[in-house]
Every structure is written in C-alpha cells, then in structure tokens.
C-alpha cells in the first residue's frame, strides 16, 4: 500500500511548526521519526491531509542532566538514548530498555517525543515514563504547559495533546538512593511489541522497608496501566515473597485490562503479567539493595 496524498511542510523553526498546527488543526499530523506514523499511512489507517515534518528544526534533540533528573528533547533518536552515558547514569531504566525497542534501523529514526505522542499501549517509553513519573512540556502558539505522564496517556493512541500542540521535551526524575528498577516483558520475537510487560521501581529506607513503589503495565490495557493500589500495598513494609505475591495478585486481577487479539488471549496476557510482575518487583528489590 502507498500513503494517500497530503500537503507537506518542512518548517525550520518551532514557531513555524506551531503556526502550521494552529492553522490546520485536526487535519495536520506532526512527522517526527515516522516509524509508527508512516506504516499507518502506508496502510492508510492514517490519512492526514497535512504533514508537518519537524526533522529540520534544530535543537530538539538533546539529553541533558539537570538537578534531580534528565531533560530529553522530543527529536532525540532512540539510538542516541541507547548510547547516552547521561541516560545510563540518570535514567538507567530507560537506558537499559532502549535496545529492546524495535530494530537498529528503526532506532536510527524513531524519537522520544514521537513514541510518547503516538501513545501505543504496547510501546515501552509511555510505560517507562509513567513509572518514573516523568512530565512533558507541551507547546502551542497559545502557550506552554507541563503535563505528568500519568495525565498524558488517556487511551489507545490518545494523549492530552491538543491538535495545535507539540510535545517538545520531557523531564525524567532521577530515582532516589536505595532505589531499584526493572522492566520485564514477553514477546514472540525479541524486539517485537510485547504480548505483556511491566515496569517496576522501588525505593527502600535504611531498614529495607519499602518507601515508594510504582508498578506500570504495558500491552494489557489501552494505555500504560499504573497499578496504584498494588503499588501502595507494597509501601510501608518489607519486600517479602508474600508481599510481592499479594501486590502482584492485586495488580493483575484488578488493575489491568488485557484484550484478546491474534497474538494472545486476554487470559494468557493476564497470566504473563502475573509472572512478569513478580519478577519485576524481585529484580527492582535486588537492585534497590545494591545486589545487581
């Protein structure tokens, strides 16, 4: 299949891009890396009348360490994140996951902001940024606002972005000391979209009591599924096998919503989520104790 015809703009400043989006509204789509949008256009699932290609806008690709976290520009390519010592030091959960995202040729083009704005519930970055409580800067001609990841992802391919807004950067907070993290997922072929997956972060106090926990699932709902009750259940106690099992049961029976498709049944996805959740908490706990 070939894409339907569209008007093409290649602005060289953010202001120009915002002006085009303001003018064309819902008819326009932003083209970043194109690794999700172009396949959808090839299938004609997406037929935008106007394409605003932001690849020629300079200064939108960066990974900068800042007080308390790391700031990532929207046009940062996945392969830049994959090779970034700053990302490795300040956001190791994202850094260590990058090689699992698609294939080398896709990571050359695919972007941080594009993956977030596309909001595929099977993609890793929406789940990781929700787990790390990241926030995103959305800019339009009307102004700018910061939106937290958990308020940004609203549903299947649906975000808080208004049609005239661009996600220009994200801020990913650094985990405090005595924290651990893990991403666990199952896919039929390595690098494919996960059938089910879960990211976990834990922070312990000096006595090994869980102070903070966040469990967020991917591919088992129409957006990143933050298991808030299960996460809260872990807090204030030692991370024992019993505590891990209890949190996992709560999360995977009541806080996810897997669907059936050609790749897996809902029951199978729930089964995978259960096993993966236990593993994720265990690994995050090990890391929080400095054991990995």
């Amino acid at each position, binding site marked *: 299949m*070939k894409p339907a015809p569209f*008007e*093409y703009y290649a602005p060289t400043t953010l202001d120009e891009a915002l002006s085009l989006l303001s003018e064309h509204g819902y008819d326009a789509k932003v083209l970043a890396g194109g*690794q999700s949008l172009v396949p959808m256009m*090839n299938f004609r699932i997406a037929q935008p009348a106007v394409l605003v290609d932001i*690849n020629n806008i300079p200064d939108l690709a960066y990974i900068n360490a800042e007080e308390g976290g790391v700031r990532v520009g929207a046009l940062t390519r996945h*392969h830049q994140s994959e090779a970034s010592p700053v990302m490795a030091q300040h956001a190791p959960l994202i850094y260590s996951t990058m090689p699992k995202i698609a*294939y*080398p*040729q896709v990571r050359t083009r695919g972007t941080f902001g594009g993956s977030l704005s596309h909001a595929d519930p099977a993609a890793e970055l929406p789940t990781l940024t929700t787990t790390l409580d990241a926030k995103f800067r959305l800019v339009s001609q009307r102004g700018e606002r910061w939106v937290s990841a958990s308020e940004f992802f609203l549903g299947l391919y649906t975000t808080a972005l208004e049609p005239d807004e661009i996600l220009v950067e994200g801020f990913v907070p650094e985990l405090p000391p005595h924290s651990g993290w893990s991403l666990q997922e199952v896919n039929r072929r390595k690098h494919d979209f996960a059938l089910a997956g879960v990211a976990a972060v834990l922070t312990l106090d000096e006595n090994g009591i869980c102070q903070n926990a966040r469990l967020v699932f991917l591919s088992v709902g129409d957006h990143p599924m933050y298991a808030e009750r299960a996460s809260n259940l872990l807090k204030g106690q030692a991370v024992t096998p019993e505590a891990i099992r209890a949190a996992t049961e709560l999360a995977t029976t009541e806080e996810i919503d897997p669907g059936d498709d050609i790749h897996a049944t809902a029951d199978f996805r729930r089964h995978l989520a259960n096993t993966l959740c236990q593993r994720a908490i265990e690994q995050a706990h090990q890391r929080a104790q400095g054991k990995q």
Partner: protein
Amino acid sequence: MEATTQKIELSVTVNGTRYERAVEPRMLLSDFLRHEIGLTGTHVGCEHGVCGACSVLMDGEPVRSCLMFAVQTQGHEITTVEGLGAVDALSPVQQAFHEAHGLQCGFCTPGILTTVTAFLETNPNPSEEEVREVISGNLCRCTGYQHIVDAVLLAAKKKQAS
C-alpha cells in the same frame, strides 16, 4: 515554504551521484530509489518496517527506506547496496557473504549488507551475540541466519586484516 500535494523539487545524493527529481511528497524513499532513479537493488517487502529488505544508509546510518518519504532526504546522502561494491569489485562484506554462503534467494540481502556495512564501521570486532542483534531487524526466510552470522563475522575478520 510552500505546501503542496504537487511535486516538490528534490535534490539528493545517492551513492555519490547527485539526483534532481520532482516528486510527490507521498513518494516513499524505497519507491524513489527503485522507480525514479532505477536502483532496484533496494528491495521492497512488507512496506511497514518489519522485514528490513529496504534498509539503506542515510548519512551512513541504517534506515528503513519504506518508512521515509523521499522528500525527507533533501540534501542528505543515501547509500544503497549498489553503492557498496560492484560485481567485479565486491566490498569486504559482500565478499564475505559470497564466501560464507550468507544468502540463498537474495531478497533480504541488500538490506542486510547495508545494515552490516554501517555496523562494522562502528563495531569492527563484534561478538556473535552483537551480530545477531544488529540483523534482528532483517527477516530472512531461507538461511536460518546461521550463514549470515558466519558471513558477518568473516567480514569483520577481512576488514581487520585489510
């Protein structure tokens, strides 16, 4: 900055030669290479970024040419399999694929050759695991990959020896 579904003047360097063509914005890079400038070495398989057959190099980095519009290559340099070597002067990677039987039907081969050529520039002495990672985005239905992996490891040896 004029918007149009009409043709756009494109100037792009492919395998060291400058090409100037008027193309529709919706023309995929893969179709541009094959139909506009006649470089049919770049193969088109799935057209949605899974099979890897259409992989080419843009400014030295591997990309899916079916997931880019030709107009996005304005001013950039593209390398296709035709730019790697010639029949009577194979590149080290091509020579290794020949010697190690790294292909059977050959459909996936151009995408693998371009990807591997870029990979060995930055990683001249890869492990087998790294080789399997770098070709993870290229489907081959003939070889079972074993001979492809052998060929890439042989290519690395050849490049280091030369």
